[in-house]
């Protein structure tokens, strides 16, 4: 159990538009859903209706891409107000976003742009995480991103940065083991060292996904099955963390719901600590 007493929700699936009819029509045996916050903030249409229907039947977690928690523009309190209201409306178990920035000077690039990992960025981000957590009245859960560049101004590893950020801001962590693998390939570090260094009691949730390997680099496309190396990292994470809410993301070339759910349920094989240790 994490230090926030946030529950292990089991194995969940990312809620996607193409699956709405299937979910409403068949009520599949899924433990929980993660909804992309921005898709539901400014709509009174079908998406919001469906989310509220699903929230009546399943636990919901909100996962955002536009908080820009590492950005240097002021925090967007209009966005945060809407996010908080949405969280209350669907009884979100927690709210997460990425360790990244998404734009400056009032613009949004709509990408999860990487941070330099140094003291300046750490203190800046920690202060913003604290403000957001206070505003939301729940600890923000921060996800490690996948990235394709490293900055010359970086002075610490990403895992040290995340651990320090969690300690300084008292946030939860969403450990994306696919992102760890992607970044380890792109930057040439050992992903096992990363997993081993994460403060286990901060981890509230784990993400799984597929990616696209281009030989010289990997892009985090969320358009495929989880590869064996990522399952191994997941097993390693489970061995350290214990049973933890786990979610399968699939965002492009999305197959039918049963395929995504079946891929997610492979995680069950690693969730017992004994099994996980054996697999490491």
């Amino acid at each position, binding site marked *: 159990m994490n230090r926030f007493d946030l529950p292990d929700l089991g194995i969940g699936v990312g809620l996607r538009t193409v699956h709405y009819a299937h979910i409403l029509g068949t009520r599949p045996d899924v433990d929980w859903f993660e909804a992309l916050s921005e898709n539901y*903030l400014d709509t009174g249409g079908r998406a919001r209706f469906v989310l509220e229907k699903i929230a009546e039947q399943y636990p919901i977690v909100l996962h955002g891409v536009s908080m820009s928690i590492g950005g240097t523009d002021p925090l967007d309190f209009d966005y945060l107000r809407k996010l908080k209201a949405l969280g209350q409306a669907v009884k979100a178990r927690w709210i997460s976003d990425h360790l990244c920035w998404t734009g400056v000077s009032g*613009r949004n690039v709509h990408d999860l742009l990487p941070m*330099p990992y140094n003291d300046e*960025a750490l203190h800046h981000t920690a202060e913003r995480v604290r403000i957001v957590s206070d505003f939301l009245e729940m600890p923000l859960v921060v996800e490690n991103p996948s990235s394709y560049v490293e900055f*010359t101004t970086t002075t610490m590893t990403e895992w040290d940065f995340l651990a320090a950020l969690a300690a300084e801001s008292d946030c939860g962590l969403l450990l994306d083991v696919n992102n760890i693998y992607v970044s380890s390939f*792109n930057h040439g570090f050992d992903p096992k060292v990363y997993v081993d260094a994460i403060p286990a009691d901060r981890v509230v949730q784990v993400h799984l996904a597929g990616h696209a390997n281009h030989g010289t*680099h990997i892009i985090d496309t969320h358009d495929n099955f989880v590869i064996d190396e990522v399952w191994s990292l997941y097993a390693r994470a489970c061995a350290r963390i214990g049973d933890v809410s786990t979610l399968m993301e699939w965002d492009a070339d999305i197959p039918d719901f049963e395929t995504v759910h079946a891929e997610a349920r492979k995680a069950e094989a690693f969730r017992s600590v004994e099994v996980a240790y054996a697999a490491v």
Partner: protein
Amino acid sequence: MQRSEASGVGSGEWGVGATSPISDLGPPTPDSRLPRLAPLQEWMQGVVTHPGDVYQAAAEAALGVDSVILPSASLQPIQRVGLYHGMYMLRMIEALTIDYGSVAHFLGEEAFEKLVRAYVQRFPSRSYTLNRLGDSLPEFIATSALKRRIFLRDLASLELAMTHVFDEAEAEPLPGDAIASIAPERIAEARIVPIPALRLLSLDYDANEAFQAWRDERPMKPQRRKSWVAIHRHDYGVRRMPLSREAFTFLGSLVAGQTIGDAIAAFHRRIKRLPEQDELFTWFRDWSAAGLFAAIEVT
């Protein structure tokens, strides 16, 4: 911090001595030639969103890419930041293709990409959602040098209205017999409250027919003739209802908040006749059945 759009590549401030917008955020980086957080983000955004290729972006940047980005075992710094640069424009094109499918189809892939590249330079996203990225595309097209720009403006206006209606707040439609239940002597004072998910368009081209042709995979033929259309949502589905000039005039007055009596008077001024009783009956019957009205108020 809100800067003008002109502050693009190379506009960041560098080093410890520079006037940084985050100068109170901790000690400087060890090497004072390297950018602190805010200028680093300005620099990277400038490179990533540059309308040219990443080499042009790098050439125009205030600092060399190699001084900001480290190489990997297999990619040079410019190749690494180029991944973000390439994905940015693909994302913009994808988002606008979703919202403006018929415009994209009519223009063709190459011309639409060129339009998007120019558009996002002038109207970059300033929202946390990509859903609003295309809000200024109709006006951008209207002032562009595109051939058929008035037709394309109308087509884009139609598709923009559809995205707005898609996201509008839901409202319970008025029962079909609600208007008939008003005492005849009070009907002129009645005010109709439309559902939020309703937009009325007056167009120079028959964009609705062109849009339907695209949906039906028929050739899109721009027909220059005035047309009027109501875009609305029913059972969470976006619908398009062609209107006559007369129906548009009357419905427009109601949607603007006029009483039924004032809407009839406005109709008389614009159409130079009073609406026929049969016309009014048919309009109210059809509009009620389509769920265009949320309430009726009699003061």
